[in-house]
């Protein structure tokens, strides 16, 4: 048969590889900065753009979408071409994908420190960027499916299934979680409120981990591990079972992020059950990876690439065992809101994603430049310092998480809290924060060494942008294999495959969502819960801008240790006007859901100016700009209108008198502050923030509140 000549596009792989290393360095550096701020809060230099709340999402977004994202695209663009025996569908789309993605990263790096955020974790970017993400993602999809359609290899290797599942699911997740109504160019409100918003967000958040940090990397593992080890994957059959069960089960497990919350109990239980079931496919993947090296373990001792991959797969195994354990309610009761979770995600990010990426880079760069790695010694150094970094990081965070959680829950023999002052539990773990920063820095040093090593490698090699290849064209022929036709038929039809994968993930989503959305009684309304006043609404948006929810939850769980510390546990009906919900996922500071009325206005005024003046030793940064910034009220009318359009019952025409109400309430608070001796002015942002904080959790304190089921 005549062979067709074509070339592989290595240029695009090189671009993504470069971006991976660059953004990896940036994302990790920001991580070290915020880790340091947690024991040295003055390192925000009283500059809004450098404050923890604003740059913490910069760190997570940079690592997830810039570092890991570019690594995924690098790995896919190289392997997909080889597995399909075809050049990428369109060089133009490859370019659009690459430059579009980098542009999105840059716009995130600008808007997040400026305080433009939706407050939803791993989906903080505002609506114009959301649209850009969708467009670039579609360009990537067209490019990928175009390549698959014009392939010269009839059957799709399992790695490609993982790529397809990734693309389909991320598309669905992104669209569903980003439905928001714009107020202005960089401000919007989600159409969901409270409990529903929380459910959608954590369905998204959980599956972003599943389908952005897990499935594409499993695909990469199935390609690059056999390549690096030069032996086929241990069991191809296992990879098939593992693929379908993984995408089927993962999609259901989101509610385990909301255990003991105001989410309906049945949804919580569903999340737990599916999380436990997830161990099976996850470990199927891990075992398949590790057993691929059976009989070749002697090579692991010498080959840094295999070392990285083995630790990556082991970290994957640990994280995917720990995850289901954390979904058990009794474990979750201890771990949730603490540093334990931070440790858990970093085992995944530093171990699984980071180390697999490094392994691939060490394999790929010499390949692309047709040379040997510059220094094996440096790669080994990177491996050991990186591993040491992970150990320091993880052990300190486990220690700190468990310590703090037990302190929160400790009662005296008389039945009162042993540590009623939250700050005491924070000061106890500050040494662990220092160790964590050291661990992160060690890891970072390793990455710098890798960057140097890779650059040196490229210098000694010769890069070939288009790599010549040849393969026979794909012609229709009789399937040579006798049995088990249907699944292979499916593999011959990528579009059907796409559709089936979509159905698999949609079933989970729909069964989770429909009841919560359609059955009103799922969220009992509470008659005394009223919409926010215009000033409170503005204050809430400042709370969102400063990302207070990065460190403070608004969710009192139904434990005695929490109701003693914070007050009445949180009810679903209290959040019905919260667009977006602000439950938070980490308590670096205390819960704020019942903070309303707990302190006088003056306390908040001084506390925001300098937290340690009210709580000596506090690790909260200062927010002096809130006292001097003028409150922007120009969009009040629009905000009220948008809120009404998504179901908040402001009376008709209220927007016209909203400003009057706003000023009246601001005057009241200002007068009170002035009486206490604060040089407060009524048109500053601090007034709105105080109004919001004082409102929090107060509605149900009204006497004789009634639930309407």
């Amino acid at each position, binding site marked *: 048969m005549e062979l067709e000549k074509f070339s592989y596009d290595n240029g695009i792989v090189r671009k993504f590889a470069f971006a991976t290393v660059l953004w990896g360095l940036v994302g990790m550096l920001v991580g070290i900065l915020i880790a340091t701020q947690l024991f040295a809060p003055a390192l925000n230099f009283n500059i809004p753009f450098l404050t923890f709340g604003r740059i913490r999402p910069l760190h997570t977004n940079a690592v997830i979408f810039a570092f890991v994202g570019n690594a995924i695209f690098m790995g896919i663009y190289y392997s997909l071409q080889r597995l399909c025996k075809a050049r990428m569908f369109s060089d133009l789309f490859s370019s659009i994908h690459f430059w579009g993605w980098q542009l999105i990263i840059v716009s995130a790096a600008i808007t997040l420190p400026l305080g433009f955020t939706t407050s939803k974790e791993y989906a903080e970017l505002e609506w114009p960027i959301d649209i850009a993400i969708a467009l670039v993602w579609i360009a990537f999809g067209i490019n990928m499916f175009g390549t698959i359609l014009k392939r010269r290899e009839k*059957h799709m290797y399992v790695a490609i299934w993982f790529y397809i599942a990734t693309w389909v699911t991320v598309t669905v997740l992104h669209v569903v979680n980003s439905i928001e109504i714009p107020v202005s160019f960089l401000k919007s409100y989600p159409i969901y409120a409270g409990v529903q918003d929380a459910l959608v967000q954590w369905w998204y958040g959980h599956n972003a981990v599943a389908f952005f940090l897990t499935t594409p990397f499993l695909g990469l593992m199935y390609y690059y591990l056999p390549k690096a080890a030069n032996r086929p994957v241990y069991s191809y059959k296992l990879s098939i079972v593992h693929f379908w069960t993984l995408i089927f089960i993962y999609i259901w497990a989101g509610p385990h992020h909301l255990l003991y919350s105001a989410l309906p109990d049945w949804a919580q239980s569903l999340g737990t059950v599916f999380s436990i079931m997830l161990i099976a496919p996850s470990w199927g993947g891990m075992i398949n990876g590790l057993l691929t090296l059976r009989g070749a373990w002697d090579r692991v001792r010498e080959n840094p690439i295999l070392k990285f991959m083995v630790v990556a797969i082991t970290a994957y195994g640990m994280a995917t065992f720990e995850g289901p354990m954390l979904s058990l309610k009794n474990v979750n009761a201890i771990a949730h809101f603490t540093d334990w979770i931070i440790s858990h995600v970093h085992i995944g990010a530093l171990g699984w994603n980071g180390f697999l990426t490094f392994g691939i880079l060490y394999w790929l760069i010499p390949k692309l430049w047709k040379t040997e790695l510059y220094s094996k010694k440096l790669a080994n150094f990177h491996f050991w310092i990186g591993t040491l970094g992970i150990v320091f990081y993880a052990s300190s965070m486990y220690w700190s998480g468990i310590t703090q959680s037990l302190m929160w829950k400790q009662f005296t023999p008389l039945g009162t809290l042993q540590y009623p002052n939250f700050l005491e539990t924070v000061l106890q773990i500050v040494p662990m924060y220092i160790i964590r920063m050291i661990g992160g820095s060690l890891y970072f040093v390793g990455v710098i060494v890798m960057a140097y090593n890779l650059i040196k490698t490229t210098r000694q090699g010769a890069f070939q942008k288009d790599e010549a290849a040849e393969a026979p064209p794909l012609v229709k022929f009789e399937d040579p294999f006798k049995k*088990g036709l249907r699944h292979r038929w499916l593999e011959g039809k990528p579009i059907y495959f796409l559709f089936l994968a979509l159905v698999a993930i949609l079933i989970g989503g729909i069964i989770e969502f429909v009841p919560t959305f359609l059955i009103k009684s799922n969220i009992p309304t509470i008659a005394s819960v009223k919409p926010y006043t215009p000033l409170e609404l503005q204050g809430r948006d400042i709370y969102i801008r400063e990302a207070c929810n990065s460190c403070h939850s608004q969710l009192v769980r139904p434990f005695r240790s929490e109701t003693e510390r914070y007050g009445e546990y949180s009810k679903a009906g209290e959040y019905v006007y919260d667009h977006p919900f602000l439950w938070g996922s980490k308590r670096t500071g205390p819960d704020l859901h019942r903070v309303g009325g707990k302190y006088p206005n003056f306390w908040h005024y001084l506390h925001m100016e300098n937290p340690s003046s009210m709580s000596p030793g506090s690790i909260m940064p200062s927010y002096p700009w809130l006292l001097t910034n003028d409150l922007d009220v120009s969009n009040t009318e629009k905000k009220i209108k948008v809120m009404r359009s998504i179901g908040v019952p402001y009376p008709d025409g209220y927007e016209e008198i909203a400003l009057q109400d706003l000023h009246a309430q601001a005057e009241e608070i200002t007068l009170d502050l002035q009486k206490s001796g604060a040089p407060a002015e009524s048109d500053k942002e601090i007034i709105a923030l105080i109004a919001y904080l004082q409102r929090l959790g107060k509605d149900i304190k009204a006497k004789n509140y009634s639930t309407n089921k």
Partner: protein
Amino acid sequence: MFKDYLQSIEGVEVYAIISMIIFITFFIGIIIWLFKVDKQYIKKMRELPLEKDSSMNFGEVHYKNPDKKN
């Protein structure tokens, strides 16, 4: 507590049962398929990423007589 919400949904158990049935059916289907599938196909797929010579990997000629494979 939250049991109030749980009990307020009529027939809430049905969601868990439906989900279980869908999943188990699908899982069994995959297992049955794996028992029936052609071993040569699995062998070919396993080795797909490792194939060095692109002219050697085309299914028809190469695999119709799998015995001749070294």
